[in-house]
């Protein structure tokens, strides 16, 4: 019987969604212009995973939460100033490049190696959390690769809910087609859960939690190992912004009735 969980959350750094992105091609391949300078946030779906991990750990005394994050050390430190106030965790930083154009296979290898090296991690209690897709690469494969590398044979993606039972098993709701959830029961850890939005709101900032976290975060950042990312044969032919400018007709002088007729005609037109 499992009475506590060891939850490892994988979460990357992404540009704030409100920022305008401009792709560029540099000597090392494509990237986003001034990405290091853009305001950054924790990957939104992975952030859901972190909040769910903290909530689950709070329900199971003795549980631990680690946050594994791959990105430039300076950017990680900057981001942790806010993220550390949201939930209690131990940071496992990996010093690597920022951006969505790196190869997911290489990123997953670095993450799996970092998880495998976590001191005190009990694999029989391991729940590997993360976002089901990132807001950068958006491929939805990094977590799956990492799980396979760690030999985890139960994986769930698009998770919106987990309910743990006293015997260590848990029920999972995964998003499937048609706006539905698939419900499954897993016998217990180890398992991979790629989170969608979950059900929890973003926690309020708690400076006390932040102070406690930062005591371990800063030393961890100083020790972070730099990891090069191999391309694994991936070549970019082109990277561009979509042409999306439309000629917008602004209709100001119609009554509600006239607009309704216009809309119904449009809806019913083939």
């Amino acid at each position, binding site marked *: 019987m499992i009475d506590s969980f060891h939850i490892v959350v994988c979460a990357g750094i992404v540009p704030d969604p*409100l920022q305008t992105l401009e792709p560029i091609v540099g000597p090392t391949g494509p990237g986003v212009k001034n990405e290091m300078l853009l305001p950054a946030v924790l990957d939104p779906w992975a952030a859901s995973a972190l909040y769910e991990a903290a909530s689950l750990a709070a329900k199971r005394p003795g549980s631990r939460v680690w946050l594994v994050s791959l990105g430039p050390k300076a950017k990680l430190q900057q981001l942790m100033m806010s993220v550390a106030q949201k939930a209690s965790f131990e940071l496992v930083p990996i010093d690597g490049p920022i951006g969505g154009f790196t190869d997911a296979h290489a990123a997953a290898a670095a993450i799996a190696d970092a998880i495998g090296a976590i001191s005190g991690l009990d694999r029989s209690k391991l729940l590997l959390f993360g976002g089901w897709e990132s807001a950068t690469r958006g491929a939805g494969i990094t977590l799956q690769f990492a799980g*396979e590398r760690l030999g985890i044979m139960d994986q769930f993606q698009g998770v919106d809910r987990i309910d743990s039972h006293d015997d260590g098993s848990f029920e999972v709701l995964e998003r499937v087609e048609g706006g539905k959830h698939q419900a499954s029961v897993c016998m217990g850890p180890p398992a991979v859960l790629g989170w969608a939005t979950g059900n929890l709101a973003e926690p309020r900032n708690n400076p006390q939690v932040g102070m406690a976290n930062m005591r371990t975060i800063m030393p961890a950042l100083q020790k972070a190992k730099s990891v090069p990312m191999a391309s694994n044969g991936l070549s970019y032919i*082109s990277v561009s912004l979509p042409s999306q400018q439309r000629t917008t007709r602004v209709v100001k002088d119609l009554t509600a009735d006239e607009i309704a007729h216009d809309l119904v005609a449009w809806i019913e037109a083939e």
Partner: protein
Amino acid sequence: MESVLVLTHSDETGEQLSKGSLEAVTAGRELAAQVGATLTVGIVCGVSDLMARSLSCAGARLLVVSGAAFAQSRYASDAAACEAICRTTQATIVLAPHSSRFARVMAAVAHRLLGSIETHITAIGGRDRVEVTRWFYRQRVEAVVTREARPWFLLLDSGTHPVYAGEVAPVQAEQIVVEIPALRTTVLGTRAPEQGAIPAGTASDESSQRWATIRPDAKLLFVAGAGWTKKQPDGKIHVAEAGELILQFVHASGASLGSSKSLVDQGGEGAPVLPFLTHLNQVGQTGSTPRHSKGLATCCHGEEPHVVGWRFIGERRAISLDPNCGWTRGKADVVYVADAFQVMERVNSLLGVQVSCGVSKDVS
């Protein structure tokens, strides 16, 4: 020389191939013809007879993994099935639909076969080599990529290729026996998302609740924004009326119902909410990016994350009180500067009149 494998699976009825699978078959046939490769189709399902017969004219070798364990969508069994088919064919390029079922396992299968994978593919092209198009940064940056490594797995987004339709005829399919690993996960089934109760006394009944999700097969996407729950010109909030108007419209038109993140999130912040909306309705940066031919946004304001949700919508119209909304500039085809409450009430009335006159009310 390339060899192409298309992996397919059954739909939720378990009786026929999923729509995404049939689109992948079309893509596989096109790619095989383009690169002069042999084509194999693999089927993962509970019972395969009808599914195999539907591919009798696809010009492909058919491989089947079937049985009770494969009737359900589950990581361990699906990964084992796909791995077995891939090892049997030794294909260099593997196409599959980007369904929830295959998206859950295909990276793992690629890893087991020492291959590479690209997902959310929207186009396949190239002359001397295979090139694929996909999006980065949540549909904000488009890239064309290629790889030398093989096998190369490509997960195709739905709606990017026509559905394969061929004559149904008897066909010889090869059954592959798979050693199923110990299964630690039991699939209980599918459930509708939890929704809040619809206010009593409204016209919205249980059938309306069932309409209230993103439905890929609908022609129209209706997006409700946070403006529906804000103070109206009379200085009051009219959430119940808003909910009723929206559900009436979705029910009458057969539209898919989407929402902005801000509206879904309001519940957690103690603000008035439309009880039937869940995160599954959310479109945009942290929601879905549906592919409907038409989209109607109401009471939305113009944040880039919301626009992201509209990337693949064909014709876009909006109703907004703000003529200077950033959304309107270059994003929508038509913007009606009007009160959405008044307009939608009239639209519902018109749809109702047409229903009673015998005109089809379902645009899907």
